[in-house]
């Protein structure tokens, strides 16, 4: 067994919950954030209420809170993943055209989506698994990917069969071109830069070489200041 294989075998990949918590840590107070459907919706549970982040769900909920207590469910209040949710104090409802106008008009600070593939040029494929996909479901993914100020992706690093979801060019049908800014996987946090993927952090015990071994695009370590745009944005909102 070579050193890279050992490093990969020895490291402990993040669980889904830990991945959501990891994303949540990087969202500053004051941001308006959409989480699409699926795994990213768990991010809501990991932002403490005292850090005021406003979550938007594209079915017309601005100020989405966590899941309700089982004995206190508003049966008219669901999120885009069709789960019961709550509305935070200060929240509001919008109809679908307004809800998507705020997405398409670039008013959201961040959207976090799941994906099948992300390419080193920021392309995202997350709605269909082949050109012959029977009745693919696009939902709001293309609106969110094209419309928000920044798009982060939360996904497993590898497919179930062990293929890299980070790629040179997407082979699945595209959702949007050149829009992904950062990827959170169960192995690493990576920025999408003009020079491809830059690794910000890796899980304990993992090495860049070992990560590169399971990634179908060239990697380098990031050297920029951590989250410069986030810090600036938080100041501007004050």
């Amino acid at each position: 067994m070579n050193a890279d294989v050992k490093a990969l075998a020895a490291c402990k990949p993040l669980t889904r919950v830990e991945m959501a918590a990891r994303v949540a840590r990087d969202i500053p107070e004051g941001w308006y954030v959409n989480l699409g459907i699926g795994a990213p919706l768990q991010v809501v549970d990991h932002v403490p209420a005292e850090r005021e982040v406003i979550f938007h769900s594209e079915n017309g909920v601005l100020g989405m809170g966590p899941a309700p207590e089982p004995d206190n469910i508003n049966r008219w209040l669901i999120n885009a993943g069709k789960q019961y949710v709550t509305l935070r104090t200060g929240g509001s409802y919008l109809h679908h055209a307004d809800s998507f106008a705020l997405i398409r008009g670039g008013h959201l600070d961040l959207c976090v989506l799941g994906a099948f593939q992300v390419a080193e040029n920021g392309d995202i494929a997350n709605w269909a698994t082949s050109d012959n996909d029977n009745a693919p479901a696009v939902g709001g993914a293309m609106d969110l990917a094209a419309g928000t100020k920044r798009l982060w992706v939360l996904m497993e690093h590898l497919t179930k069969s062990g293929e890299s979801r980070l790629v040179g060019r997407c082979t699945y049908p595209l959702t949007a071109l050149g829009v992904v800014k950062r990827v959170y996987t169960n192995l690493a946090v990576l920025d999408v830069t003009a020079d491809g993927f830059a690794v910000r952090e890796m899980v304990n015990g993992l090495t860049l070489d070992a990560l590169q071994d399971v990634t179908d695009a060239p990697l380098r370590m990031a050297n920029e200041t951590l989250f410069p745009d986030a810090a600036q944005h938080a100041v501007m909102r004050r």
Partner: protein
Amino acid sequence: MIDKIVHTMAEAMDGIRDGSVVLIGGFGSIGQPNALIDGLIEQGAKDLTVVTNNSGVGRVGLARLLDTGRVRKIVCSFPRTADPVVFEELWREGRIELEVVPQGTMAERMRAAGAGIPAFFTATAVGTKLAEGKEQREFSGRRYILEEALAGDVALIEAWEADRWGNLTYRSSARNFNPVMATAAKLIIVQAQHIVELGALDPEKIVTPGIYVNRVLHVPYGEPKVT
């Protein structure tokens, strides 16, 4: 005296013709006018084009309408929600046409129809399979595609409260597509949980003003089930 309240389903459904484009409100089962869908099944219009976000669950409501074989085409963003058995069967057998539209584009196409805008440019879907065959143009260095307005002959709407002028309010996220669809068809039919006196609705809280609405049927069905 203006009175848009109708008292029977037959009155509510009167005149819906074969070949109609029918806009149906709701996101999943929330805000979906199930009583009116059942009424449409009873009424019997066929060769329909249905515009709605999902493709129905199980064998009730929208799925039941598809199951009658009277829907020629469905326009939606997410045909695969939980348990879309009827849609899957029809699709497999080639008995239904499908137009998949990004959810925001779908909402905006109806908003445009209601506002007299025949088409608009959007960045959504640029460079994807859903942009194929569409006119493209660049504005300020960014590419956009042309999308056309999407108008209905009929819209089936679920509201929370209604008065006899057809002023409407909605409940929580059951608002969803209902207000925009209520502007985008020639005949707007509403099922409302509560009918209130004219003047009882706070003018500051009316979401759909009665000008858009043709018929209101009282359907106090209680709480929706999430499916």
